[in-house]
């Protein structure tokens, strides 16, 4: 091929420019660690990265919500624990004063203690978490029980997402657990009855309260078991959300980030190629007849 001076200089500009362009392209991943900046760098990875980022975000928010729900259920469980303890004391009182040998005054004193225990139970049932009453179903803006023991909440159970589209109960129905809706025992009414029997010095009536007290304790235990199951589900959701988020982060890293060794190898290659291009170009410039004619 016939070689002209314009070709020599044109090739120098083009080859040098191409080598510099490759060097610039190699510097990006090596310095930032990012392989895909524009969608055109890797269209499939760019699209997938959008979806993976969504999975990461979703896992994070689901995990956060599940953790909050678990914490809230913990508050409810503490409340029911207080109820259980109160019922245990009531059972002791019923056992004691259902026996012979106690005076009316002593039973009246026991009735006072039962009244106090009922107030403690009501206080526990009206507990709040993050400013919300956890026992009122979805009517969580007001105390679910009034001073007389009437249930003011609704029959709904709050739901929290534990996986995309999968919802888990995040509260227990206090109307079922405490008021016995659906065939159980109305614990608060039973306490009222017990108080009445104690004040009336009705030994037989007090003794008869032991059976429903046992059932009430079982009823509360069932509610706590339900809470435990839900808490377990939320703990699992938190764990699996973390796993999903970690997996998504790893996938995003594989999709978008540059392999450090490969990036630095490419950078070294590009630097070497540019040096070689510049050296060859400068040598080519010297090979002209002008240099010999002028000497």
């Amino acid at each position, binding site marked *: 091929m*016939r*070689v*002209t*001076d*314009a*070709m020599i*200089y*044109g*090739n120098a500009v*083009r080859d040098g420019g191409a080598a510099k362009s490759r060097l610039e392209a190699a510097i990006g991943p090596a310095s930032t660690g*990012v392989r*895909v*900046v*524009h*969608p*055109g*760098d*890797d*269209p*499939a990875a*760019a*699209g*997938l*990265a*959008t*979806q993976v*980022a*969504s999975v990461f*975000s*979703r896992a*994070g*928010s689901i995990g*956060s*919500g599940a953790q*909050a*729900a678990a914490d809230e259920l913990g508050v409810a469980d503490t409340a029911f624990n207080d109820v259980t303890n109160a019922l245990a004391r009531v059972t002791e009182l019923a056992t004691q004063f259902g026996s012979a040998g106690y005076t009316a005054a002593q039973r009246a004193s026991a009735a006072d203690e039962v009244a106090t225990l009922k107030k403690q139970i009501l206080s526990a049932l009206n507990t709040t978490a*993050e*400013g*919300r009453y956890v026992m*009122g*179903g*979805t*009517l*969580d*803006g007001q105390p679910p029980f009034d001073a007389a023991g009437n249930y003011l909440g*609704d029959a*709904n159970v*709050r*739901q*929290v*997402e534990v996986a*995309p*589209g999968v*919802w888990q109960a995040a*509260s227990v129905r206090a109307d079922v657990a405490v008021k016995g809706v659906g065939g159980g025992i109305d614990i608060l009414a039973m306490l009222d009855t017990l108080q009445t029997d104690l004040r009336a010095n009705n030994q037989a009536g007090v003794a008869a309260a032991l059976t429903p007290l046992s059932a009430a304790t079982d009823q509360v235990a069932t509610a706590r078991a339900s809470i435990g199951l839900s808490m377990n589900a939320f703990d699992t959701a938190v764990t699996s959300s973390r796993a999903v988020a970690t997996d998504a982060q790893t996938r995003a890293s594989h999709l*978008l980030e540059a392999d450090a060794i490969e990036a630095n190898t490419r950078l070294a290659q590009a630097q070497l190629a540019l040096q070689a291009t510049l050296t060859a170009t400068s040598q080519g410039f010297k090979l*002209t*007849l*002008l240099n010999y*004619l002028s000497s």
Partner: protein
Amino acid sequence: MTDLLAILNQSATSLSAQQALAATASHNIQNASTPGYSRQTAVLQTTLPADQVGGAWIGRGAQLQTVVQSRDRFLEAQIPAQLGLSAQSAATSAQLASVSALDPVASNGLGSALDGFYAAIRAMSQNPSDPGLRLAAVSSASTLARSFQSTRSSLEATRSGADAAVAADLQQANSLAAQVADLNGQIRTARGSGAPPNDLLDARQKAVDELAKLTGVSPVPTSDGDVSLFLPGGAALVSGVNASTLATRPDPANAGHLAVTLTGPNGQVQAFSGIGGAVGGALAARDGALKDAVDGLDTLAWDLGATVNAIHQAGFGLDGTTGDALFTVGAATAGAAGAIAVNAVLAADPRRLAAAGAATSPTSAAPGDVTALQALLATETTALSGGLSAQDGLARITSDFGVAARAASSLADHDAAMHDNLLTLRESASGVSIDEELIALQKAQRGYQAISRVIQTSSAMLDTLMSLKT
């Protein structure tokens, strides 16, 4: 009959021929860096007829026959088309590479806004009566709407940038078309003298090349030495000494973006779509991948808005209100991503954000009721009317744009390589080698010196002859 005076006369002609050789080499050297210049060669010929002396013919020296250009017509016929293709793919690639609105690593992009919206709704579902969470949910909806707007606006700005590039390129193209028509006329006139007007031919070829880069014109030589230029759609841009004019006008059917018109020498204006080169490349990017991305965003915003609104309108706010749309998205799919905004009523009063599935009274809903929010969250992963979820739809838009940008980049690299190869071959055939020209110059100098010696010798012989007579 050849005599000493004739030898002197012939030598003078031959000296002129050697001067022409030197002048041509000098012209070549001086134009070694001139783009589009084709090296020239002075062609000498023996002066005819030879003198007959007795029975023999004695030559009369040499004279300049012509100066020709070194051009490869086969290569030159391919170059304008390749220049047009190369400029077209480079322009398309450059337009698409300038877009950063869909970059996957952008921290405040539409994808993260979409994720943020659903994360805020999910957080609110945990405690729907919390005023802070309600405000955060409305705020995230606003962020999502603004992100749709800014992403669309960024893409539209690139499309408008393409309009500006097209308008500027067409101005330059009109100037070049007028030059080619004018040069056609000058070349016609110059050809009347019989010799090829080499430098005018170079100037025309250069203008044709530049015009091919801008518009993708194809040159068609005519029998009278003109070059007519035809746009890829078949319309004539230059016909002989007449040039048409390219212009732009806003196209209402394309959101006011510029359409190209062609005004013929007779003043007739016609709209046409067949244009290549850098102008065609910019238009291809503007009305191809960029428009697809804008349309995709509009469809996504419209579908998401409609789906979310349908659920929200069926739900109930904390204050028992119902029927509110969460987003306003305009009246049609077209432009929805630019028009989407959070319903001003909800922005002013986040209590109206519908979380509940039912009201407990005309002025209230159960504060913990998240039935509507559950349905809203379901839209995160379920298909919208377009068949994909919002995130999958956005991923599709990003991937499709990436595929188009990558294809344009690959095509641009390929076309540039083809273009470089052809230009290298043309340079090899037509370019100036300083070494060659220096040798030619030395050769002419040696010839000139030798002929001078002939004159000197002839003169000495004449002197001898004259001294005999005295």
